[in-house]
């Protein structure tokens, strides 16, 4: 390529203001992984179907593989690295994923946890069916989803200071 095109992109990533010169052809996944070494952002399908690359942008979860890096200018972005404490301590939600064995190979995990974080930040109690729908943009080929749902559900009740009710009888699916 002789005449490559670049743009200066300034955004807040995990609470810090960052600036980089990015190729206009780059996806946000490319920028976060290559310019900022945030490798929790996984390259999965790269066509917006699997959710492994999901990040939080201004409070909403987006697939960063189908989001242009140049669009990130002025945005507030959170990746999985942004949820941990200063010494790498796990958040309550991350710990729940560990405790419930909601992780096997771990490839889908960052996306699931960030999506769950945006859901839980609404501060509402959702039914299992509602949670399934809200989490439906992420594919997991290991766990069969039940443990993931359990981890999210458990954290949802804990954050509201409520006892965790027995599991609903799921309908056949």
């Amino acid at each position, binding site marked *: 390529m002789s005449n490559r095109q670049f743009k200066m992109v300034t955004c807040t990533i995990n609470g810090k203001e960052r600036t980089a010169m990015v190729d206009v*052809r780059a996806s946000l996944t490319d920028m976060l992984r290559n310019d900022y070494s945030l490798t929790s952002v996984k390259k999965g399908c790269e066509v917006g179907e699997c959710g492994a690359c999901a990040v939080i942008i201004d409070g*909403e979860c987006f697939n960063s593989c189908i989001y242009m890096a140049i669009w990130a200018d002025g945005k507030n972005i959170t990746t999985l690295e942004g949820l941990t404490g200063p010494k790498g301590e796990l958040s309550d939600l991350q710990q729940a994923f560990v405790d419930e064995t909601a992780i096997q190979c771990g490839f889908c995990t960052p996306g699931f946890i960030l999506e769950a974080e945006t859901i839980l930040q609404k501060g509402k109690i959702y039914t299992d069916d509602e949670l399934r*729908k809200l989490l439906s943009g992420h594919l997991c080929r290991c766990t069969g989803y039940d443990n993931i749902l359990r981890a999210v559900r458990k954290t949802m009740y804990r954050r509201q200071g409520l006892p965790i009710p027995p599991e609903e009888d799921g309908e056949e699916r």
Partner: protein
Amino acid sequence: MYDIKAMYEASSVADAVKLRQQHPEAVILAGGSDVLIKIREGKLAGREMISIYGLDELRGVHLEEDGTLVIGSLTSFSHITADPLIQEHIGVLGEAVDMVGGPQIRAIGTIGGNTCNGVTSADSASTLFAWDAQIELTGPDGVRILPIAQFYLGAGKTDIRPGEIQTSIRIPKKSYEGYKGFYIKYGMRRAMEIATTGCSVNVKLSDDKKTLEDLRIGFGVAAPVPIRAVKTEEKFRKAALSADLADQIGEAVLEDVTPRDSWRASKDLRLHLCQTLAKDAFCEAVKRSGGELA
């Protein structure tokens, strides 16, 4: 990294129009959930892009003084579903776009892109047809507004002329006042799915809830473009509500639709769906309007 020849970022609607004139071959990039995937597939690889994603002036929903509901073309599906004006006046549109893809797709996908790509399966389209929506396009000669049915020229082809971009979708007060609707998407799975067939029905009942004042039936994937069941609507306008009315409407729509066999589903299945979905969506719309099909 995407295979893009050049990227032009519009800074305003006027700038977008100028860029469209300067680069007539360039593809308009809104949310990108269709265009970027087509670049990956190779279909749109190596092309110039005009990104309008940054035009916040095209986001949001508002009411004009005469009651026209205006939806900025870049409003995402998730924001449409959450919008109080949509919920109050045309709630079924919020429900319909809440069935697109998955949550992250609904965060990036725009209603403008969903209509401009001209596909018959778009979850917003059949409902917008049912609401008699109008499309606003802004170009070098100013603003042009046309009924959504005229906007669709053929499969994958819409009436966006050189220099134009779609700037809003408008629903006049007379189209929504007194109407209630229901949308049913039939798909093979519950998320990340394209409609096998979809049907959106609006009804307006008489004050005593005994007569069908008006009826509008929109279909997706019942023809090469989204359509209205015009003959059926004509036949049953002013009909009295009765126990077998829904069945009659289901039968009648078969005269309006022309689905085809595709790898997703057969023509026969789609015909069956058109009949069943029209019937079921009609029943629900009547129920929402406070009527009874006894």
